[in-house]
């Protein structure tokens, strides 16, 4: 085995891949959120539509988007190889489980949380990305440019309380995933030091609460607006 396969297939190497892809996806969340918050602007969707138009046609963004899909797939693939290896390492379990005495529920449930997020991503892509790319979306003209009315697509979907509720719940799942994942990524990269680890942990917890909460705010506000 060459040193490179040896590195990438060792559990430590795989954790490094998990950390790097995880941090990239964490960063992606912040960018995605910044764009989506425009849905809450009271401009009839003008700025959100300009933004989606830009994102769909800018070549740099499209390249990063491909990378993003690749990193999501890599994150999922490596996590499952680790999951099955780790299951095999303890074929007979314990009768008594210690619960949360020595570790947090989130840290023990990353595969479950990640799988729920995967289901969310698939439905999320089907609901918007797929429709915008391959479906029929009404057009709108902003500043003389004709573009998809992505704003209307989102607003109309959140009029359904089931869809809005699903989005809000999924952001709860994301919060737990980030609760452990954020600081865990730094630990996996070997970045642990009394100078900054405390800071990373605080930022991680804040990030895990604030980002999903702001994401969840969008369906909440749009649904409330729709009922009046």
């Amino acid at each position, binding site marked *: 085995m060459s040193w490179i396969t040896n590195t990438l297939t060792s559990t*430590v190497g795989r954790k490094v891949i998990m950390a790097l892809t995880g941090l990239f996806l964490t960063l992606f969340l912040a960018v995605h959120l910044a764009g989506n918050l425009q849905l809450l602007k009271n401009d009839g969707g003008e700025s959100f539509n300009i933004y989606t138009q830009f994102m769909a046609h800018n070549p740099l963004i499209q390249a990063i988007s491909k990378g993003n899909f690749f990193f999501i797939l890599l994150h999922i693939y490596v996590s499952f190889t680790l999951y099955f290896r*780790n299951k*095999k390492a*303890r074929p007979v379990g314990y*009768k008594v489980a*210690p619960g949360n005495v*020595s570790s947090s529920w989130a840290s023990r449930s990353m595969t479950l949380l990640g799988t729920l997020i995967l289901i969310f991503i698939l439905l999320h892509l089907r609901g918007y990305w797929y429709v915008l790319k391959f479906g029929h979306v009404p057009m709108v003209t902003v500043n003389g440019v004709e573009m998809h009315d992505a704003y209307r697509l989102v607003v109309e979907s959140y009029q359904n309380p089931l869809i809005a509720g699903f989005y809000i719940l999924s952001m709860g799942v994301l919060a737990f995933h980030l609760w*452990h994942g954020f600081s865990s990524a730094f630990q*996996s990269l*070997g970045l642990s030091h009394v100078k900054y680890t405390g800071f990373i942990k605080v930022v991680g917890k804040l990030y895990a609460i604030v980002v999903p909460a702001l994401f969840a705010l969008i369906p909440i506000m749009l649904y409330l607006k729709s009922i009046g």
Partner: protein
Amino acid sequence: MNMNLKLNIWRQKNANDKGKFVTYEVSDVSPDMSFLEMIDVLNEDLTRKGEDPVHFDHDCREGICGACSMVINGRAHGPKRGITTCQLHMRSFKEGDSITIEPWRADAFPVVKDLVVDRSAFDRIIQAGGYVSVGTGGTPDANAIPIPKKTADIAMDAAQCIGCGACVATCKNASAMLFTSAKISQLAVLPQGQTERYNRVEKMIMQMEEEGFGGCTNTGACEVECPKEISIEHIARAHREFIAAKACSHNV
């Protein structure tokens, strides 16, 4: 006040036996007894009755050898922090308690009998690289090699590991990363450990994986249950060592 307890103990005749839990009543247990002494009392009873006593590993009984290994009510070395089973006393339990005792559970630690598991996988990890090469000859002068106090402290903290395997037993993935990282760490920070530095981390991590231990997922449970309270900072250091070794070692 002496107490009566119900013990739910894993009994397994040998490595091939399926094994099962058997319930025993022990009466008149003194709160001053250690946990192992309590099992000694049970075993005296069993022997008198002509039954097979409960087999368990133990040696120094003063918390420094790492032999005693049992999961007590779901926790390696029992409910107290920073101690081994032999240092756990019955005053931590109360009258009428039901206590479940299980062996370390890991594919890499097969059960030999009852609560005894084979931990030689740890020995093989050490043999893979947990050593330093020292030239023979006259005794070197003490402190001939200057080492900063903080560095010596870090090495000493890691070197406290007694190799009991509580980290593996506790980890939901049965990962040996805390053990392996402590053994990597204690030598990696010291000048004497530099000669084999990169080879050490590469070989020890590889051996750890060959033994069938799971991977670390940073739950941090190991450092909570470690009787020597070894920090997962050493795991981060082992990751740094691993990344540096992969980037710099001459093993292509």
